């Protein structure tokens, strides 16, 4: 058992000293024990006298000191020292011998023995034991201290290694992060440098903190000249004022804002589209304004050019439409006279040759009228000014009306018209009734005109998805080759029909398709050469709440007796038209016609004469026909006088507006003489009671 060196030195240890004594002589054993006891050393002595017992004792027990004789009958001290060094190297080993010479003793000490005591000088044993014990204790203490130091060193090394590992990992992570940051920084720097936009950052005083290459180019100044400077220090005062004002707005409103700013580059003004936004520190305080400015001068110029071109196109289109509108009126006026007088002649008893000539005149006039109307419609559609009145239109009715209108032509050409029963009764489509009729009339008259003799025209209807209805007009004509189908819808493209004597303007299909599309529908064709063509118009299905169609001449008026008397004021500036109406009224000799050449004269005439009927042109030299109408209607004394408006531009919208303003009826120029006479008769005979 190890003893504390201080306690051993002070003699304060109470533990008995455990001694292994290798000795064969009992006498010497007693002498040794007596010497120790005599010196006050409390000890327990284990005595052995052979190699076996010596070795067994060392293996089984722990001793503080080993005392060994050098020469034994069956054993020797030299071997015992070797065994002890092997089994308990820290236990002090003292030779106690009577025969150990000086030289041998020194050898043993060199070999690790603690001491040697001659039996002849046994009195020295206690001090040798004490010293050996003290040295052993001190050695043990040193050993323990060294062990502790080693342990502490090992712990320290472990901790150092651990910490070093941690630091290495942290360093590695930092190095990686730094590399990433560097890479990111390089990337950002690259983006900044090569960005086509000028990128900059200014502090709250407006001093540049960061600028990229583009801004250097834009301002014509190096980075060193810009960083730390304000706009007022590097730019023209007016520009600097604008930039600063915009920066201040971003600072005060604390949000991203967009500005259009000017820049002076090489003496030339450029336009910049600038996005500026505030930058905030971690506490949420704004510390800088960042800006990205792009030179949009070329784009803006191009935009301006496009806008100008668009405005020019709109202006040109508007001028074109205005011109077409005037042309329409200008052409309709003489056409009105042509058709009016020709109709009068047609009604007269003429020589058959002359009658044929008159019919040629009427036919030419009507074709010219169709041409004007169609060109005008196309111009209106192009300008987006086509007035449409979409409403639910019962397909059955509109087909029947168109078929009835085309029936005489079909009969004339020996073509049979066949309307197939509709899959659903009273099915309606959303369309402008008049325009849908116009489309169907065009398709039907084409189907008749371009049919073979004794041919057939079939009208059928089928539902298509989604919620649409297709009206098909099939003929048994010669058909159209596939490569020419598209040409059918080109204006004035008649695919050679102009040389066949078949009349037509060549605008009908182009206009019909445009009208169908303006009503949200489509118009198409399928054709097989030598078998015929099927044209179709497809429109959206509507609910079947339908008003009756507006008829130009109510049925009730047909068959009205000729008026015998009455006074009519005709407000018209065109003398041809006046002469025509005068000529028409020759058939009513009792009727007096008073002509007013302008609106104000007409209004005075109505107020003074209180006529039975007013015929009113819309285009008058002083005030408009609508103003005259309002004047008549606003005076309670003249309100009862029926007014028939005669106009060359009778669109459904205008007709509704005129009727709302007090018109009793509207007729379109060129005049249908029969219709005009029927209306005049009806009003003068007082049969037209309901003026709505």
């Amino acid at each position, binding site marked *: 058992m190890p003893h504390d060196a201080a306690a051993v030195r002070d003699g304060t240890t109470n533990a008995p000293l455990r001694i292994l004594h290798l000795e064969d002589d009992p006498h010497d054993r007693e002498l040794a024990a007596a010497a120790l006891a005599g010196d006050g050393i409390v000890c327990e002595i284990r005595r052995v006298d052979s190699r076996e017992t010596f070795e067994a004792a060392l293996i089984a027990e722990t001793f503080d000191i080993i005392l060994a004789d050098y020469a034994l009958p069956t054993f020797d001290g030299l071997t015992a020292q070797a065994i002890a060094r092997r089994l308990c190297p820290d236990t002090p080993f003292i030779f106690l011998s009577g025969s150990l010479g000086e030289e041998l003793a020194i050898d043993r000490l060199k070999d690790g023995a603690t001491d040697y005591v001659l039996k002849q000088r046994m009195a020295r044993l206690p001090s040798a034991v004490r010293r050996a014990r003290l040295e052993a204790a001190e050695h043990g203490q040193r050993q323990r201290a060294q062990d502790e130091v080693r342990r502490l060193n090992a712990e320290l090394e472990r901790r150092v290694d651990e910490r070093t590992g941690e630091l290495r990992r942290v360093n590695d992570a930092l190095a990686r992060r730094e590399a990433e940051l560097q890479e990111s920084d390089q990337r950002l720097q690259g983006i900044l440098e090569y960005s086509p936009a000028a990128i900059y950052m200014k502090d709250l005083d407006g001093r540049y903190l960061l600028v990229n290459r583009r801004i250097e180019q834009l301002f014509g100044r190096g980075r060193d000249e810009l960083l730390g400077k304000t706009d007022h220090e590097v730019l023209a005062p007016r520009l600097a004022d604008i930039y600063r004002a915009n920066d201040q707005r971003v600072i005060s409103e604390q949000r991203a804002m967009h500005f259009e700013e000017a820049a002076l580059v090489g003496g030339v003004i450029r336009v910049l589209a600038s996005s500026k936004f505030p930058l905030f520190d971690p506490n949420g305080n704004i510390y800088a304004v960042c800006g990205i400015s792009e030179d949009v001068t070329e784009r803006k110029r191009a935009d301006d050019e496009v806008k100008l071109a668009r405005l020019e196109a709109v202006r040109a289109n508007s001028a074109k439409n205005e011109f077409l509108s005037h042309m329409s009126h200008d052409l309709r*006026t003489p056409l009105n006279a042509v058709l009016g*007088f*020709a109709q009068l002649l047609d009604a007269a008893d003429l020589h058959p040759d002359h009658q044929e*000539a008159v019919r*040629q005149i009427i036919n030419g006039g009507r074709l010219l009228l169709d041409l004007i109307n169609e*060109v005008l419609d*196309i111009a209106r559609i192009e300008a987006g000014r086509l007035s449409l009145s979409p409403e639910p239109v019962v397909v059955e009715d509109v087909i029947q009306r168109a078929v009835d209108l085309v029936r005489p032509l079909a009969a004339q050409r020996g073509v049979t018209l066949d309307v197939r029963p509709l899959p659903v009764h009273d099915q309606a489509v959303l369309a402008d009734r008049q325009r849908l009729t116009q489309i169907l009339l065009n398709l039907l008259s084409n189907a008749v005109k371009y049919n073979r003799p004794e041919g057939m025209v079939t009208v059928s209807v089928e539902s298509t998805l989604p919620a649409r209805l297709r009206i098909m007009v099939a003929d048994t004509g010669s058909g159209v080759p596939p490569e020419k189908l598209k040409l059918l819808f080109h204006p004035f493209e008649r695919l050679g029909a102009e040389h066949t004597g078949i009349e037509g303007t060549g605008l009908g299909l182009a206009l019909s398709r445009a009208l169908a599309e303006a009503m949200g529908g489509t118009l198409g064709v399928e054709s097989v050469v030598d078998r015929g063509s099927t044209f179709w118009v497809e429109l959206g299905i509507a609910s079947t709440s339908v008003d009756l169609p507006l008829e130009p001449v109510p049925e009730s008026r047909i068959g009205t007796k000729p008026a015998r008397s009455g006074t009519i004021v005709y407000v018209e500036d065109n003398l041809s038209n006046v002469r025509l109406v005068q*000529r028409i009224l020759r058939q009513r000799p009792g009727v007096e016609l008073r002509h007013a050449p302008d609106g104000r004269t007409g209004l005075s005439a109505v107020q003074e004469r209180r006529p039975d009927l007013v015929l009113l042109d819309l285009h008058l030299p002083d005030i408009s026909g609508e103003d005259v109408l309002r004047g008549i209607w606003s005076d309670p004394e003249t309100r009862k006088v029926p007014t028939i408006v005669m106009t060359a531009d009778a669109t459904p919208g205008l007709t509704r507006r005129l009727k709302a303003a007090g018109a009793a009826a509207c007729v379109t120029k060129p005049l249908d003489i029969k219709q005009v006479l029927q209306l005049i008769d009806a009003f003068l005979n007082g049969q037209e009671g309901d003026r709505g």
Partner: protein
Amino acid sequence: MADPRMMEPDLIHQFKNHLSIIVGFCDLLIAESGDGDTRRDDLVEIQKAAYAAMALVPELSKRFK
């Protein structure tokens, strides 16, 4: 839809064509009518109107170009 300017040659052609037919037949009828024919006045009106319309064609043609 085609630009109406593209239609110009056809349009002018058709106007002239129809007006020529009207004027032609009208001239014919006037030539064949006697001085005392009451229908002559009506024919003269047609002729005047047709010439008035014909006079508009150059303006129409000019505006399209």
